[in-house]
């Protein structure tokens, strides 16, 4: 009995974190606007004792903050830029966590006929063909980079497009507000769109093409940047984000009855065993 209680006491002492520790993570606006952070952060704190302080910025700025050593980790969605960051030694590695998807939003009467398109490329060609107003993020964010790659794939040169193509240089929410005001087309991530409170006459017109999938990855900042980098906490957080517990929370997160994110991290053997 006495041994039992000792074991229990030790187990409790190791399971309940004694002191909350702070770490800073730069995340994209689209991740934060989805509301998933509000679900995950309290669970992370309860399970690991880490108080994750979020800096909500565009992907470009997030990578920049990592390169300067001002944050401990980054959670973004722009593969090419992430790999460049790892190659340049700013982050130790890149770990895929989950994906959501991009959707084409536009006026409900759909003057460009995007809703009937077969592919994302065809949808964008329809918008360009109809010269329908299109709002672009224009802020070098992950969503903006994705949008540019889609235009390129559709064979349309938006750099020299007419005034129907409007780059607003703003975050997802602000760009959606602009699109709502102009009744224009826009590319948005599904999460931001579902959580957006000012939809006006806009509606979801096109989704489902695999090229629209949006992979989120976690990048711990290189601890060589200084002693202040909490790489230990970043590694602990990565372990949690790729655990069965995270998978359950991420897959179970719903807005308006729709699942937003799909967990697709490669679990380690220990995490699998725990499951």
């Amino acid at each position, binding site marked *: 009995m006495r041994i039992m209680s000792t074991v229990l006491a030790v187990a409790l002492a190791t399971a309940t974190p004694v002191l909350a520790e702070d770490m*800073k993570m730069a995340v994209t*606006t689209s991740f934060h*606007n989805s509301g998933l952070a509000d679900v995950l952060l309290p669970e992370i704190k309860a399970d690991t004792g880490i108080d994750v*302080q*979020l*800096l*909500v*910025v565009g992907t470009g700025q997030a990578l920049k903050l990592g*390169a*300067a*050593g*001002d944050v401990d980790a980054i959670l973004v969605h722009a593969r090419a830029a992430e790999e460049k960051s790892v190659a340049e030694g700013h982050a130790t590695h890149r770990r895929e966590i989950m994906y959501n998807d991009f959707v084409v939003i536009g006026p409900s009467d759909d003057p460009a006929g995007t809703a009937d398109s077969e592919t994302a490329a065809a949808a964008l060609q329809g918008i360009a063909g109809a010269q329908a107003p299109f709002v672009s993020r224009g802020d070098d964010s992950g969503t903006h980079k994705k949008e540019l790659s889609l235009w390129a794939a559709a064979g349309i040169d938006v750099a020299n497009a007419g005034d129907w193509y409007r780059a607003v240089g703003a*975050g*997802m*929410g*602000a760009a*959606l*507000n602009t699109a*709502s005001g102009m009744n224009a087309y826009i590319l948005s991530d599904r999460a931001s769109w579902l*959580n*957006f*409170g*000012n*939809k006006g006459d806009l509606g979801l017109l096109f989704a489902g093409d695999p090229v629209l999938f949006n992979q989120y990855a976690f990048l711990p900042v290189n601890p060589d*940047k*200084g002693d*202040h980098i909490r790489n230990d906490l970043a590694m602990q957080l990565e372990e949690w984000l790729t655990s069965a517990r995270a998978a359950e929370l991420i897959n179970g997160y719903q807005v308006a009855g729709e699942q937003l994110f799909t967990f697709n991290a490669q679990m380690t053997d220990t995490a699998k065993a725990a499951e």
Partner: protein
Amino acid sequence: MTDLWAGFAEAARLLITLDPDLTAIALRSLQVTLCALVIACAIALPLAAFLSVKRFRWRRAVIALLNALMGLPPVVVGLVVYVLLSRSGPLGVLGLLFTPSAMIIAQVIIIVPLIASVAHQSLRELWAEYHDLLISLNTTQCQRIVALLWDGRRALLTAALAGFGRGIGEVGAIMIVGGNIDNVTRVMTTAIALETGKGNFALALGLGFVLIALAILVNLAIHWLSRTETGRQW
């Protein structure tokens, strides 16, 4: 227009329920801006008095510069302070980035020129009146500055309140150097920007109305404390 009414309703709801998040954010706003104001006044008011009583070669240039800096774009100040405080910047070892201290530093830089310019304008006029008296009493430079600051305190209050107004409503700089971190550096203006980005106009407007009410309250409180509007004193 419906958004505006929804905003009023939201503001009323936030105030009546004394929303704990709102209270924390509002107090942080006040803390940052009042700290910045005290520091900025300690720099700007003596500077303004000095510029009034002392004649030196570059005086006009300094005054013109201060006046021009009243229009400092906060976002540029924020970016410069970020670069300085960044871990890869010259003051990175202090570890001040993304803390309320960084926000206070940015606000001090923004409001010092404003307070100094407004204060100098009124102290200069006061100096024209006091000039002969203070010179004939054979006062030291330091005594003159103190006399000007004390007798001009009511005009200086206006200068300080102008600085407070610019600080409390500022968003561009503190967004960059503070990072708008929940429970750490989120203040009223950055919360409003965040809610606007989410399309929650009612909540954003509600917070906005609360912020305006807060600014009015602080102004009234300072006036009341310094009893500027009573008959015998001024």
